[in-house]
């Protein structure tokens, strides 16, 4: 049997790499390949474009957009990151209410934004591994105007790939919304409960 002919050194190396693989498995980014992330963004952008090309508008559009958002995006992580440290001091009930309000706000705002992509075409161009996952680059082409770049940050948690941030010509959704939520919180006197009320009508 060939297996018995493997030298000790090679057996050791094989064993060592198997051990390393076992330890590496739970770590982030190991199982998430660039190809997986590209596929995810392919499906996500397909779904987004189906929604915006459906001809729906207003609350019907936002509802569909909310579904897509819930299916692909790390809603809780995004909401938490946009709130920052005040997340910690909020009660569990407030955290839940904040996530729900934030999700509605995001669906309205980005539903509106993506609707401007109507009639354009989006294609995944490339992907590269980054610190905490994969960054997927796609190109949006409008007829008769210069194309622009949308980049998607994808990560994996508990075996599930999710979209975390998106960058349109370098402008980050999370950075933008953290700033926006921050100034809303300021105007709510730092009260999370008031911020939640504001979020419900914003976007």
């Amino acid at each position, binding site marked *: 049997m060939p297996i018995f002919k493997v030298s000790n050194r090679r057996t050791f190396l094989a064993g060592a790499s198997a051990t390393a693989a076992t330890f590496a498995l739970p770590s*982030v980014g190991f199982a998430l390949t660039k190809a997986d992330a590209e596929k995810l963004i392919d499906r996500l952008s397909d779904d987004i474009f189906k929604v915006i090309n459906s001809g729906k508008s207003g609350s019907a559009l936002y509802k569909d957009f909310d579904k897509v958002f819930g299916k692909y995006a*790390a809603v809780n*992580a995004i909401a*938490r*990151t946009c709130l*920052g*440290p005040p*997340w*910690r001091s909020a009660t569990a009930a407030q955290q839940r209410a904040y996530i729900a309000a934030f999700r509605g706000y995001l669906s309205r*705002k*980005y539903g*509106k*934004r*993506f609707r*401007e*992509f109507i009639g354009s075409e989006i294609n995944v161009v490339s992907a590269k591994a*980054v*610190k*905490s*996952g994969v*960054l997927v*680059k796609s190109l949006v082409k409008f007829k*008769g*105007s*210069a*194309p*622009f*770049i949308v*980049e998607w*940050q994808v*990560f994996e*948690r508990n075996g599930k790939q999710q979209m*975390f*941030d998106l*960058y*349109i*010509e*370098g*402008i*980050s*959704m*999370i*950075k*933008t*919304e*953290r*700033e*926006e939520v*921050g*100034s*809303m919180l300021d*105007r709510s006197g730092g009260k999370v409960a008031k911020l939640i009320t504001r979020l419900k009508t914003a976007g």
Partner: protein
Amino acid sequence: MSRPVTFRQTPFLHLFRRITVLFTALCVLSACAAPVTKTAMNDPYEKSSRKVHAFNKGLDRALIGPTAKGYGFITPPVLIHMISNFSGYLGLPGQAVNNVLQADAKGFGQTLLTFTVNSLTFGLGDLASEAGITDNNADFGQTLHVWGVGQGIYHEMPILGPSTTRDTIGFVVDTAINPVNLLESSDARWAGFGFSVLDRLGDRNQYSEVIEDTLYNSDDSYIAARSLYLQNRDFKLNKGAVNEDSLEDPFADF
């Protein structure tokens, strides 16, 4: 004997061409913005910049916005595209100079190819981007960045909009090396200027929802515009890709 090309520049022209920067900054996005921490700190004149911002907003509301919409309403879309293409075409020689100054052979090749291909349409069409030739939009602010010059101070200027010290210097140099502005005929210079204004009005019209959302619906539009400008600028300096160091951490715990 042909007369030598004279290097005339009207300060007026400088000022007005700078309008374009405000629009560029406002137009590319699809989201408003937040400050990049390291850059947000460098805004020592925030108080006076905020006053300028209020002025610019008023100007957009009263003049620029309505003018852009009027332009978009009366002008056939095909013509708007042609004007936009032509304005971009006029900027290509200056872009090529910056490619050279940055020792960027690939960028220079792209610019040259874009110029050659689009010359087939006299600059009115953008065959190059339809053929998949990437445009690099090199400018002198970027050249300074490549040379190791720091960003300097963020500021907002009347009419001209958000900028940094480095980008303002870059703008002045780009205007000076733009061949259109070196033409002797003032008619030709004004025509070049006119094309770039119409180009920006077209953008202001095309992206009006997003621009107005940023300017008029943001909780703090000064911060939104600043952050939007700096993030987009960072992306351009990084040759059209998000800077990896600025990525958010999905596992951040507070």
